């Protein structure tokens, strides 16, 4: 297969397993490119991409911008805080105004779940979802799976536990879809108040005990507690959360096998993960960041090749 089955990347749930394979194979080539002395290829020199971020982002935005620039695309970036959105403009109007400037592709982060899907139905451009509320964050899930594949050889058959704030996490949902599509087994672990009801309906088991979850898994993906999405208190205190669901070196060393530690960032050191774990040799957190650029180059390249 040499072509994606989709024209937009709105979520992992819209992809086929072959799409993920194609993205990974293409990312392998781009990973080699970004390790060259000169890290740029001219493929997308006639493509213009708008990065529209209605929510804060450091890593994802930088990673997308870098991926686009490595592919020689023209890039415009836009943050909602400094825009006419504050003056009451609608999402479709904002994006259509940007598209009038002959933009071919839009990368969007938005706080409303489904915003990217909505946009794809209403504007003429290829849309990449860079996170829509607590719904999906497909490129993060792709780079997470890619990092597991790189570290362990394959995703199929691996046991992955996602720890922390599952309720508010788009990373968790996209990861569950991506890992299951590739044949991995997934458990979630966290305080009851942060585990969505009926999550078992996705084929995911819940393990409330962190030690048991870690003893079971090959890979632990430690998520950040998303205080900005919490309107009430979901647990008594950060200290108590860290004691029950934080991963420290002592716990990690007490396991009878070496598990891989992942984190989508930004890390709250000392809360979900301690510094010595984040910086340990079992951690692939910085590999995830490097792989993020290669994965995003692959997604952008493959979607751009479908723009007529």
């Amino acid at each position, binding site marked *: 297969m*040499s072509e994606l089955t989709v024209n937009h990347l709105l979520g992992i749930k819209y992809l086929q397993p072959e799409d993920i394979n194609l993205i990974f194979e*293409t990312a392998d*080539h781009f990973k080699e490119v970004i390790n060259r002395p*000169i*890290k740029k290829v*001219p493929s*997308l020199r006639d493509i213009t991409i708008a990065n529209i971020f209605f929510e804060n982002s450091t890593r994802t935005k930088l990673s997308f911008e870098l991926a686009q620039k490595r592919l020689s695309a023209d890039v415009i970036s836009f943050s909602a805080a400094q825009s006419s959105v504050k003056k009451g403009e609608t999402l479709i109007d904002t994006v259509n105004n940007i598209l009038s400037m002959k933009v071919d592709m839009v990368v969007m982060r938005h706080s409303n779940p489904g915003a990217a899907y909505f946009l794809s139905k209403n504007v003429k451009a290829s849309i990449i979802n860079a996170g829509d509320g607590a719904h999906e964050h497909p490129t993060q899930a792709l780079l997470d799976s890619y990092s597991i594949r790189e570290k362990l050889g394959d995703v199929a058959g691996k046991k992955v536990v996602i720890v922390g704030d599952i309720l508010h996490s788009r990373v968790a949902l996209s990861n569950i879809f991506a890992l299951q599509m590739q044949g991995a087994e997934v458990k979630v672990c966290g305080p009851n108040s942060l585990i969505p009801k009926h999550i078992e309906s996705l084929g995911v088991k819940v393990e409330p005990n962190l030690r048991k979850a870690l003893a079971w898994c090959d890979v632990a993906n430690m998520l950040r507690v998303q205080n900005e999405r919490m309107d009430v208190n979901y647990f008594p205190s950060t200290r108590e959360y860290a004691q029950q669901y934080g991963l420290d070196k002592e716990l990690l060393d007490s396991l009878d096998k070496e598990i891989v530690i992942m984190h989508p960032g930004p890390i709250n050191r000392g809360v979900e993960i301690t510094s010595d774990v984040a910086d340990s040799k079992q951690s692939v957190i910085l590999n995830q960041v490097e792989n993020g650029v290669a994965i995003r180059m692959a997604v952008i390249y493959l979607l*751009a090749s479908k723009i007529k």
Partner: protein
Amino acid sequence: MSQKILLTSKEVNIILHRLACQLIEKHLDFSDTILIGLQPRGSFLAKRLAKILKEEYQIATIQMGLLDITFFRDDFRRGEKPLEANKTEIDFIVEDKKVVFIDDVLYTGRSIRSALTAIQSFGRPAEIELLVLIDRRFSRHLPIQPDYRGRQVDAINDEKVKVCWIENDGEDAVYLDTTTQNKST
């Protein structure tokens, strides 16, 4: 399918040895020379030439790499299907080296133009030469000519030159296929 043989296994072998000798004449001990096979099909020819140079002409060290030009092509989004990349294997820089591009067929010259851009990612070579097994005359879109050529062929545009290698296709041979559209460059 209408197919005519252009080169037999024996002729391919003679030509490979002649090309190897021409390379030695120019590059002597190959200390400053790098052979670059262009992916995918040029890699077979590059590996074969390197083997002949080492085993039959006792050139001690041959530095060789494989270059994929997919992301540097000028027809992105212009074809029906996306362009599929191959692996680039160049773990050295080419700064101030004599680079020899190696490909099986020279047709429009567009692949070579892409390769000239792509190689810059690995440094600024002192010079670049081009070696091809088959030079399709009268088909060029760009002012690019080979420095070393195996055989010159006058094929018309809808004929396809097919180069077979024993390690990939089961035999060494070159065919002229007159039934398929030629998309190769």
